[in-house]
Each structure stands twice: as structure tokens, then as C-alpha cells.
């Protein structure tokens, strides 16, 4: 039986920063600079109401977006209930709900 390693590992190829187009990621960061302040502690994902029921991992998806891996990000962000727990626990005070909406807006159904 195949093991479900979550979201990213199922991608067969390496994250290729020579090929990935980071312009959208830069645009997102420009609009919301705190987006890049993440220290990847995972607190958001740990407390996530949605993430405890389905495969949604906010930390991972937003990291992938920052690396130019946009595919699927919109669909993933669509699982967010916007309940705001992640923002309460974020040690960097990132406006996580704003990030969710920004990524959805910028990427659309990428």
C-alpha cells in the first residue's frame, strides 16, 4: 500500500529553482511582506481546524508558493475555514488569514 506522505512528497520532481517562476511569489511578498517572516514552526498547522480533518497544511503550502511551486495551492487554500486559530498561535504575528486570501487571489485556479 502506498504511504501518503502528505502534500509535497507526491510531486515526482525536485523543486527546480532554475526553472520555477518566482515572480508571483515576489508579488505576493510585496503586497504582504509579513508573508516571508515565517520561521516554519508549524504552529499554524498544528492548531488548524481544517488540517486536523483533511490534508491541508498551511505552512507547507505557503512555503511551496514562496518557492514558486504554485500548482494546487489554490485548491489547498480553499480548504481553509478562516477560523483564525493559526493567527493567534503564530509567533511571528503573521496575518495568516490575509495570506490565505492573498494566495487565492494571486494564484486563482493556477
Amino acid at each position, binding site marked *: 500500500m502506498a504511504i501518503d506522505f502528505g502534500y509535497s512528497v507526491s510531486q515526482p520532481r525536485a523543486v527546480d529553482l532554475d526553472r520555477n517562476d518566482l515572480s508571483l511569489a515576489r508579488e505576493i511578498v510585496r503586497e504582504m511582506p509579513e508573508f516571508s517572516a515565517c520561521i*516554519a514552526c508549524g504552529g499554524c498547522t*498544528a492548531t488548524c481546524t481544517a488540517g486536523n480533518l483533511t490534508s491541508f497544511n498551511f505552512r507547507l503550502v505557503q512555503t511551496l508558493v514562496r518557492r514558486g511551486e504554485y500548482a494546487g495551492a489554490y485548491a489547498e487554500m480553499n480548504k481553509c475555514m478562516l477560523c483564525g486559530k493559526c493567527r493567534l498561535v503564530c*509567533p511571528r504575528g503573521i496575518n495568516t488569514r490575509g495570506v490565505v486570501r492573498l494566495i487565492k487571489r494571486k494564484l486563482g485556479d493556477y
Partner: protein
Amino acid sequence: MKKVVVVGGGVAGMQTALSLKERGVEPVIVERTGALGGKLRNFHLLFPSMTPAAEVLKSFTDQVASSGIEVRLNEEFSDFSTDAPIVIASGFNVFDARLKEEYGYGIYDNVYTTVDVERMFNEGKVGLKDGSVPRRIAFVHCVGSRDEKVDQRHCSKVCCITGVKQAMELASLWPDAEIFNFYMDIRMFGPGYEELYQQAQQEAGINFIRGRVSEASPTIDGRIQIKAEDTLIGRPMKMTVDMLVLIVGMRGTDGGKFYRPRDLFGGSVLSDRPNVFYAGAATAPKTVGESIAEGVMAAEKVVQYLNDGN
């Protein structure tokens, strides 16, 4: 000539006073509590060499006693308008873990801070509230450090190594217990620290999980369930433990902030005022050793100031 006022009788303050005395300047230590020693009094063993804190403390208090330095206990120093030299060696306050309500300190049984653990070791009573031995223990790194939500942006520096040290101590006390350290980054900056970390992994069998604990909740059988993301796997995880240890950070003593030294190089013990000096953790989180070293430096700068001015 007026005596040099050393505010705080911890290691930094005592070392400053001793160094001043050696250089022929008369210091007076003003200590808020009823005894010399500062935070060192609460500690059990010092990392990374596991030297008993009491041993280090005793050598300092003995020297202070034998050198005839004036010590004023139970006195709060507040007269900063004086033109006598003042060395602020007020150290730090331990972060109040109750401010991170989601970790349940002061709410659930068997949630401790690293300071509690040191105290329990000193009292010889380490264990759960009902006296039993925990089967599973979790340490939470960075409680009150690197956290905007509690106005503690800084890294408290010594907590990583403290967490590793205490995990190892508990592991040797209860060899059957499973111990998990939840960290965001492990910062092993000092001599022998990385070695201790490796020893903890390899010999003591401590499990290190990269993820910040988001919350703790009680279970039906009186244990504690914690939530984190195992960020290296990329999935949320839950875990039930018998004992939760919060590795608390340092809070500054200048209205919750650390004093700001003139610069971080030659002027690290100088303030904006010529007669006010700093030593130890008053300006930033520091180890015991670093605080002692700064005591010497502060004394040196005080003497320079007195020689230049008078």
C-alpha cells in the same frame, strides 16, 4: 569618595564587585532579595559540564564575604540621579508561563517550567503531582522566546541547551521514560553544547521533533495532550504525555525589556550615561559564564571612568 553601586547580587554583580575591589575601588552590592546569588540559587546543575550550581555560587559568596564588600540585602535601588558610578547587574526575570495560556501552565496538573524542574531537583522531589513516575515527557522549547504574541521577540539563548540538559537529567533519572523535545531551531552556540545535544540524541535516546507545540489540553485520564506539526514530515501530530515541561525564556528587567548598551562591541557594558554601566543578562540573555566575564569588563570600565574623571 562615593562607593560604586552594583545593582543586583547575582553572579554578574558579585563578579563586578570583586573585580572593583581588586582594583582598589570600593563597591556596594544592592540586592532586592534576601540573599546573594540571583538566579543561580534556583539552579541545580550547570550545562554543559553538569557542575553543581551550588558549588559555583558558594565560591562567589565566600569571596564576597572574605573581601569585606558591603552588601545591602532586601533593598530596591532606585536613585539613578546619583553621580556615583552605578553598575546595573539586574539580570533577567523568568518569563511567566501563564501568559501562554494555551500550554496550560497553572491550569493542568503536571505542566512545569524548566525553573520548576531545577527546583524539584534541588528539593530532591522530581515527579508527577501524585508522586508517580512519568512514562512520557515532552519539553516545549521557546516558551516566551521568539514570540511576538507575548512581546518577546528575542531568542533567550540558553533555553535550547537547558532543555537538552534537563531532558538528559530526566532520562537518567527515569530510564524507561520516553522523552520528546519539541523545537523550532536548536541553537547550540557554546563550547561543548553540540556534543551534549548529540549525546542526548544518541546516548540518552531523547526524541527531537521539529515543530512548535500549539496547545495542550487535558485528557480523560488526567494526562496532557499536545498538538504540534512534525514539520519534517509535514503533518500535524498529537501526543499524550504525563509531564509537560515548558522551557521558559528570559524577560528583561527594564519594564520587560532588556537595557540597551551603547554598542555591542567595545561599549557592551556602557550606557548612554557616563556613570551608568551594565553587567550580565541585564542587556541580553547570557549564560552564567558570559555574565561573569562581563562583570570583569564592567569593573574595568568603571575604573577607567573614575581615573579619567577624577
